[in-house]
C-alpha cells in the first residue's frame, strides 16, 4: 500500500519573533515494514539554517533556525510511504515466552539486547506510581507470555479509558489519567508503557499516523487525520511487537510510524525556542491518503 501524507504545523505569534530555533521529527523513518519513498519539507519563512541528521534512536531529525523577524511559522511535510503487508509468521516460538522469563533474561547481564535495556527504566512521562503498578498486575499474571500480557493490557486500557480529546494535555501526569479515566492516544501509550516498565520489562513509545476511512460512500475530507501514538514491547529473539490501545488493535498497514523513543519527549514532532515578547497559538492538520496505483 502506498500513502501520501501531508502534515501541516502553523504557529501564529502574538508579537514579532526575532529568532527561533526548532527541532522537528516529522519525516517517517524506514522500518522493516515501511519505506519512505521521499519527503519534502516546506518551511515558511524560509529558514537561514537547516540541517538534517539522525538521532540516537535512528529517527530523522531536522534542525532549523529563522533569524529575521517573523509573525508566524508554517511547516509542511509531504511524505510518500510504502507500507508492506504483515506476514502471518511474526509471532514465532518466542512469542510464548513467559514475561518472568523475559525479565530474568534481561537482568542477567549475559544477553546481547543492550539497546532494549534502556526502555525498562521509567521516565518523567512514564512514572511508575502505585496506581499504575497495581493496574498492571491484572494483566501480568504468573506464567503468562509477555505477548499475551501486553495484548491483554491493550484491551483493558481500551475498555477502561474513554477517548476524549481536550481532557488532558501532553503534560498531564499519569496520576490524573488514572483518576479521570479519559484521555488521548499519547496518554494511553504512556500508561501502557509505564505498566510494562512497572513489571521490569521494556516498552517504547511509537509516534506516527493512522489512516482513517470515512463511512462507505462518503468522500474523505482533507486534514481530518491526526498524529497518532501507540506502543511496542521487546521480546528477546523476536523483536519489537506493536500494540494500539486507543483502537484496541495490533497495528497493521494503516499505522505509519514516524519514529520512536522512551516516551513522547524523545520523539516530539516539533519543539522550539523563540525570542519574543509574547505567546503563540498552534495549529496542526494531518492528511493520510491512499494512493491507488
Amino acid at each position: 500500500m502506498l500513502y501520501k501524507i501531508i502534515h501541516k504545523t502553523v504557529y501564529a505569534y502574538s508579537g514579532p519573533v526575532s529568532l527561533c530555533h526548532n527541532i522537528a521529527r516529522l519525516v517517517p523513518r524506514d522500518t522493516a515494514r515501511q519505506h519512505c519513498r521521499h519527503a519534502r519539507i516546506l518551511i515558511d519563512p524560509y529558514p537561514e539554517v537547516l540541517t538534517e541528521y539522525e538521532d540516537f534512536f535512528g529517527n530523522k531529525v531536522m534542525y532549523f533556525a529563522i533569524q529575521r523577524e517573523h509573525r508566524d511559522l508554517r511547516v509542511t511535510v509531504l511524505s510518500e510511504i510504502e507500507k508492506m503487508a504483515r506476514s502471518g509468521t511474526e509471532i514465532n516460538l518466542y512469542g510464548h515466552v513467559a514475561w518472568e522469563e523475559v525479565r530474568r533474561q534481561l537482568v542477567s547481564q549475559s544477553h546481547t539486547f543492550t539497546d532494549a535495556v534502556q526502555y525498562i527504566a521509567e521516565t518523567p512521562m512514564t512514572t511508575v506510581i502505585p496506581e499504575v503498578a497495581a493496574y498492571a498486575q491484572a494483566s501480568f499474571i504468573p506464567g503468562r507470555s509477555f505477548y499475551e500480557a501486553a495484548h491483554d493490557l491493550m484491551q483493558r486500557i481500551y475498555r477502561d479509558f474513554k477517548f476524549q480529546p481536550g481532557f488532558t494535555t501532553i503534560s498531564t501526569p499519569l496520576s490524573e489519567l488514572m483518576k479521570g479515566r479519559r484521555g488521548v492516544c499519547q496518554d494511553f501509550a504512556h500508561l501502557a508503557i509505564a505498566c510494562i516498565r512497572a513489571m521490569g520489562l521494556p516498552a517504547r513509545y511509537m509516534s506516527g499516523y493512522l489512516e482513517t476511512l470515512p463511512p462507505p460512500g462518503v468522500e474523505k475530507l482533507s486534514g481530518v487525520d491526526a498524529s497518532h501514538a501507540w506502543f511496542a514491547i521487546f521480546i528477546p529473539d523476536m523483536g519489537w511487537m506493536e500494540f494500539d490501545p486507543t483502537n484496541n488493535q495490533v497495528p497493521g498497514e494503516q499505522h505509519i510510524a514516524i519514529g520512536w523513543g522512551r516516551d513522547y519527549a524523545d520523539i516530539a514532532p516539533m519543539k522550539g525556542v523563540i525570542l519574543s515578547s509574547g505567546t503563540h497559538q498552534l495549529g496542526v492538520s494531518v492528511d493520510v491518503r491512499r494512493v491507488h496505483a
Partner: protein
Amino acid sequence: MTATTQSGSFLQHYSGTGAFYDELLGADGQLRPHWQTFFQSFGKLGLSEVLSRNQDVLRLLKENGVTYNIYSDPTGFNRPWSLDLIPFLINREEWQTIESGLVQRVTLLDLVLKDIYGEQKLIKNRLLPAELVYNHPGFLRQCMGIRQPGKHSLIFYAADIGRSTDGRMWIVNDRTQAPSGSGYALENRMAMARILPELFSGLKVRRLSGYFNALRNALTEIAPSRKETPRIVILTPGPGNETYFEHSYLSSFLGFTLVQGNDLMVKDNFVWLKTLGGLERVDVILRRVDDIYCDPLELKEDSQLGVPGLLHAVRAGNVSIANPLGSSILENPGLMPFMENIARHLLGEELILPTVASWWCGQPKEMDYVLEHISSLVVKRIYRNPTTSTSIDGGTLSSKQVQELKLQIKAHPWLYVAQEKIHFSSTPSLVDGKIEPRNALFRNFLVSNNEGYTAMAGGLTRTTADLGAFIISNQLGGVSKDAWIISPEPGRVLNVHKDLEKTSALPMDPVRAGAALPSHTAENLFWVGRYAERILGNARFLRTVMQLVVEGNRRQSEDELPSEECLLQALTCYTYTYPGFLADDARQKMQDPWKELTDVLFNEKRTGGLSQNLSLFNRAVYAVRDHWSADTWRVVRGMEERWAAAIVSTQGGHLRKLHALDDLITSMVAFIGLNRESISREQGWIMLDTGRKIEQSLLLITLLRATMVYRFDDQVAYELQEAVLSSHESLVNYRYKYRAHLQLPLVLDLMLFDPNNPRSLVYQLDRLKAYLSNLPRTGAPHQLSEHERLILEAYTMLKLSDKDQLSLPGGSENSALDAFLSKMYSLLVAIPDVISKNYFKHAQAQFQQA
C-alpha cells in the same frame, strides 16, 4: 632545640586516636619526616603569632570577597570562605604515586567517555552494563556521535581522594561535569603566601602555575578549526551559584570573559557574545553550568541558564565546550566496580590508585551482598540528586528505614551502589586556637595538555567540622586547607608571588582588553553607576535634612517649620519614598520625623529607602565582581558591613545615624574614585559613568522641582536654597563665586548653567553627550541614534535657556522653571530605556514553543 621539642608546646593537644591513620604522627608517636621542617618554621613563629596571622587571613579572605554561597542559607547570601593555616602536606614520593594514578584514571575516563558517545564497544563487550549508561540522566542521547577537536574529550577532571586506615590513598569521587575548587585552591595559596611566607621557607613547595598554563593551552587546543587566538569565555549560572566567587576569580586570573547564558546567542550555527559593539564570535566555552541546563532547545526545556541552539552549534563543529556536554555520565559511582577490568582491557594496566570497594546492585549477586551487609555500607544512587543528600550511611538507619531502603533497592536495583565505609586519615588542624586532628579529604585537579594530562601540584583539602564525621562538605560547614606537595630536605625558598604573577601576565583576551564589553556586564556596570549616585545623593540630602531637624529641635522655633516641612516633603520626592511626608497623616509624621527618617534609612523593604538601594547596588556590584580591584572590593565590603552594623544599632541617637551617613558617603566617594583609576576597560568605565551622569541629572532636577518651584517667603526660600546647595556641596562654591546673598537666579546659574561646577546640570549633560556619541552605532552612519537625539535636545534646551527667565514668577509658582525642569526630566529619563533597548537587548524573552 630540635623540631620536636620546639613544636611540643603547641602540639600538646595533638594525639592520634588510633582509629585513623594520622598524617602527622607515625606509629611511634614521632613526627613524620616531611612535617618536621614545617613545624620548625611554625615553631619559630610561635603559636600566638600564627593565631594573630590567622585573623589576618580571615580578614584578607573576607575583604577579597572570597565566598561560598549556601543555597537557602537564612543568614545571608554569601558565606565567607574559611581557610585553616596548617596545610595538608604530601611528600614527593607519595605525590608521584598519586599523580601517576590520577593521570592514569583520567586517561581511562577519557577513553570511556569517547566510547560511550561513540562506538559503545564497552557495552557491547559487556565490560560496562548498559543500564549504568542508558539509565543515567547524565547520558545525553543528543550528544551521541559528537566529537570535539583535540586529543581528549575529557578536558577537566577532579578527584576526591582520602587516606584509609591502611595508609593508602583511595579514590572516593570522580568529578567530570564542571569540577569546582581549582579557583579556591589558587586563592588559598595566594592567601597563605601573603600572610605566612615564613612557613614556606626551607620547603620545596610545588607551584600551581603548571596547571593553569596547561589549562590555557588545553582550551586553545580544542578551538574549532585550530584558531590560534580563540575567544574563550567562562559560562556561569550567575551570582546565585554556590561557587560564583570562583567563576569570577578564574575569569580575572585567566583573562577569559565571564558570561551568563543570555549574554550568548546562536546564529548561523555559531555562538556569539552579545557585546556593546555587536556580536563577537565565541570559539570555546569553559562551562560551569551543568550540562542539561546548557541548551533549552535540546536539553532541559525550562532552563534559563543556557543558550538555545548551543548543542547544535557544537554538533556543527563551530564551538567547543569544556567539559563537553554529556560528560556528567562519568560522575557515576556505578562505574567504580568496573574500572579495573576496563583498565586492563583499554590500557593493559592495573589501576595505580585503588577505588573504594563498591557493589553495583544491578547484578543479582552484588545486590544480595548489599542487602545482607547494608548496615556496614554507604549506599548511593548512581547519579547525584541535587536536592537530597546522595550518600546514606547504612549504619545510621533505623530498622524501619533499612527495610524501606531495601525495598527501594529491590525495585530499582540498577539505581544503587553500595560502598565500603572509609575512615579518612586525620591531619593537624587549627581549631579554636589549638592544633587538633581532623579528618581530611583531598581534591586534586587535572587538565588535558593534549599529550597527556597535567595534575595541579597542590589542590584543595577539606576537613570535617568534628573528628570522626563521615561526610565532608562545604555546604555542611567544613573548613578548607591549602595542600602542599613537598620534599623533606630543605631547599630553595619558593617565590610564590612570582610564580603566580607569571601566569596572570599572559596575554589578555581581546574582549577584556577593552574592545568589547558583554552587554549584560555593560548593563550591570550602568546600574552600579546609577545606584552609586542614587545612594550618594540620597545620603547627602538625608544628612542635610537630618542636620536641619536636629537644629530645629534645639531651637524650638515656630519660624523654622515651613522650611523644615518643605524639606521633608522634598525628601520624600527626592528619595521616591512615597507617600512618606506627603501622606494624609504627614502633619502627624512631621511632629516626630525621626520615625519616618529612620525607616527611610534602615528599612530594607522600604522602596526607595537607602538600605534597599544599597542592597540593589551590592547585587549589581556582585554580578560583575571580576571588574573590581582588590582595593575597590575592600571598600564595598567595608561599606556593606558598617551599614549592616548601623542597621542593628537603630536605637542609637541621631548623631549615630548622621555618623552612619557620613561613613556611607565617604565609602561611596572612595568607591567611585577608585573605579576611575582601576577599571582598565574603557567601555566599562563609560557605562558606569553614563549611569552616574544620568542619575545625577535626574536627582538634581527632582530636587530643584521639589524645592524651587513653589514660591515661599524669602526666609523659607533662603533656607531651602541653602539646603539644596549644601547637600550638593556647592554652598562654598556659591559664596566664592557670587559673593552674594542666596537668590534664585544665581542658584540656578550655579546648579544648571555653570560648566565649571562639577555638580551642575550642564556639566553632567556635557559628559553624557560625549559618552552617548561614543557608543557603537546601531543605525546608518549619518543618522543620529535615538539616544543621541534625546541628549542633543536636552543639551540644546539647556544652552538656550536663561537663568533670569526661568526665575520669573508666574502666580504662586515659578511656572517657567517648572515647565523647563519637567520637559528636561522627560527627555533624560527616556535615555536609559533607549540604551537598554539598543544595547542590553533583554527586551525579548525566551519562550518554549510546543
